[in-house]
């Protein structure tokens, strides 16, 4: 087990930067997720850590070892791929034993370790099967067993759930998290799915255009996004242009909203739709008119128009009201609900 430190890692293809100076510290035993849209450089970063892509600049350390110039087969990493990448000509047992054989582990030890790994992923008794005789979820669990059985220093997961259907994705991701905690293995996972990222990560690193925009716990990222890109990538958000005035954010139309922890120089205010409270007309807050109201079962999705002409999207739990178009109400934005940010930061 070991932490991972990557410093000013960059990869350029001709003039194009796929990864542009990424520095990350992954603590021993931590589960870090690289989250970002396709083409943001997260997979290239992972492949540089694995050793399949040579960095143009920077270095990769696993524990105390500088592995920047080590080939993948000397890095002692466990790798799980989106398409499972099992060896189709080998049985499940032989697949899982592959890494142990390369390490010249004795046959008796191989048998026990393979059996332990398979039972960890709940595939006892599947050892004699061929991958093609298994479902996608089972194949991915074999791939996980194959990666952890070698007791790697780090576990790297490249979109491991993307090929699975929704229910299975939910199950396998829970299993991944449980295994990772049990084994205490330092893990980096790449994904473009924010729900998936939030649900498994100790910390997230949100990437865009080859750079890390923000690193933090899921709730830090969600509640205190560093910029507009991060805010909208991890969830829905309302944005208002304006300026900060001693704890009050003044929008372009003159709306004054008290905001806790408002940095001087903030020019954008972000409000999550579910952070807005709905109250009867005349109550303390912002007067608003309902433009559209959509009932979703668990709650309501409302598009409001504020007095100053701004729009405000709100998601509210179903508390028995029946919101209608044209209805007048009050939107309550608590001082802790808004987050000030500087555009372009």
């Amino acid at each position, binding site marked *: 087990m070991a932490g991972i430190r990557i410093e000013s890692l960059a990869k350029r293809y001709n003039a194009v930067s796929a990864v542009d100076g990424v520095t990350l510290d992954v603590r021993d035993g931590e589960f870090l997720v690289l989250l970002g849209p396709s083409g943001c450089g997260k997979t290239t970063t992972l492949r540089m850590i*694995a*050793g*399949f892509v040579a960095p143009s600049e920077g270095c990769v350390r696993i524990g105390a070892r500088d592995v920047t110039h080590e*080939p*993948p*087969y*000397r*890095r*002692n*990493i*466990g*790798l799980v*791929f989106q*398409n499972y*990448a*099992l*060896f*189709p*000509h*080998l*049985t499940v047992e032989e697949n899982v034993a*592959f*890494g142990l054989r*390369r*390490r010249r582990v004795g046959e008796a030890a191989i048998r026990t370790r393979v059996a332990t790994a398979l039972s960890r992923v709940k595939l006892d008794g599947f050892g004699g099967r*061929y991958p093609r005789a298994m479902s996608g979820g089972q194949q991915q669990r074999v*791939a996980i067993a*194959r*990666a952890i059985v*070698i007791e790697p220093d780090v576990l*790297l997961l490249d979109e491991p759930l993307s090929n699975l259907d929704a229910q299975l994705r939910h199950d396998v991701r829970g299993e991944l998290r449980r295994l990772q905690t049990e084994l205490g293995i330092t893990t980096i996972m790449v994904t473009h799915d924010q729900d998936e990222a939030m649900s498994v990560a100790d910390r997230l690193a949100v990437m865009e255009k080859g750079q890390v925009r923000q690193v933090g716990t899921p709730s830090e990222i969600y509640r205190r996004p560093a910029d507009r890109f991060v805010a909208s990538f991890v969830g829905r958000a309302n944005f208002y242009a304006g300026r900060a005035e001693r704890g009050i954010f003044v929008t372009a139309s003159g709306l004054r909203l008290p905001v806790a922890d408002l940095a001087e120089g903030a020019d954008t205010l972000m409000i999550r739709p579910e952070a807005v409270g709905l109250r009867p007309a005349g109550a303390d807050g912002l007067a608003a008119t309902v433009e559209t109201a959509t009932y979703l079962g668990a709650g309501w999705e409302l598009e409001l128009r504020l007095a100053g002409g701004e729009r405000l999207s709100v998601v509210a739990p179903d508390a028995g009201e029946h919101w209608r178009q044209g209805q007048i109400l009050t939107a309550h934005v608590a001082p802790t609900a808004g987050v000030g940010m500087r555009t372009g930061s």
Partner: protein
Amino acid sequence: MSAATTEQRRFATLLAPATVIVVAGLVLPLLLMARYSLNRFEPGQFMVEALTFGNYVKIISDPYYRRIAVTTVTMAFTATAICLVVGFPVASAIARAPARWKTALLLLVILPLFVGNAVRAAGWMVALGQKGLLNWILLRLGIVSEPAAFMYTWGAVCAGIVSVNLPYVVLTLQSVLEGTEKSAVDAAQSLGATPFTTWRLVTLPLAMPGVVAAGLLSFILAMNAYATPVLLGGPTFQMMAPSVADQVLQQSNWPLGAALAFTLTAITLILTATVSFTLARTHAGA
């Protein structure tokens, strides 16, 4: 009911021309040849109507024909092995090449196919002759003091057959390697396998269907090679396809020529089937 009949009629119409050509051009001559192979050859009288396995017995028992058969099979195996060993790296390189180079590389492989076997063999004659390119180079470099004999040797024929078969082998292997999962190779390396171990344990086993297909194709082509052994092997070097032609055209011995032709076909079929079945069983898991 009537729709089905129309459908059937259309089907028959589509198949008819090819069927006629195959029956007239392949099945009938083959049947005729099969009948000929059971006739007797009398010097002076040529073919005499008979029903005898004498020609086949002669081929099997006569050391002269046995040697021709052994030469042919050995040549086909050797040339195929060389094609596979030389062709595999080329095919992997093309399969891994960036998309924009792939077309150009494939074209380079296909290019030799534009030149017929006989023309290519003529080229080899120029290269390998007493005053040929190879001897000129060797003399210039001082490796030999007088021209070496390359023409009319086993090696010359083998080189010729390899050059004819190589494009087919490369193309067949490349199409299979193209379809194999790159991430399985990455997975093997992440698990600690060196590039060579990865190739031995993952790439090669996954490419086995392509190796078998390419090998069989090359083997069948080599077994039936005609122009190359005639032009590069000369009058003393004997392989089966030229000896069929020799019996029919030079000796006018149609019965023996026909029997030789069927022996050649039988050996090819039996060896091909044996290899296919054996490999299919070994790789039943894949």
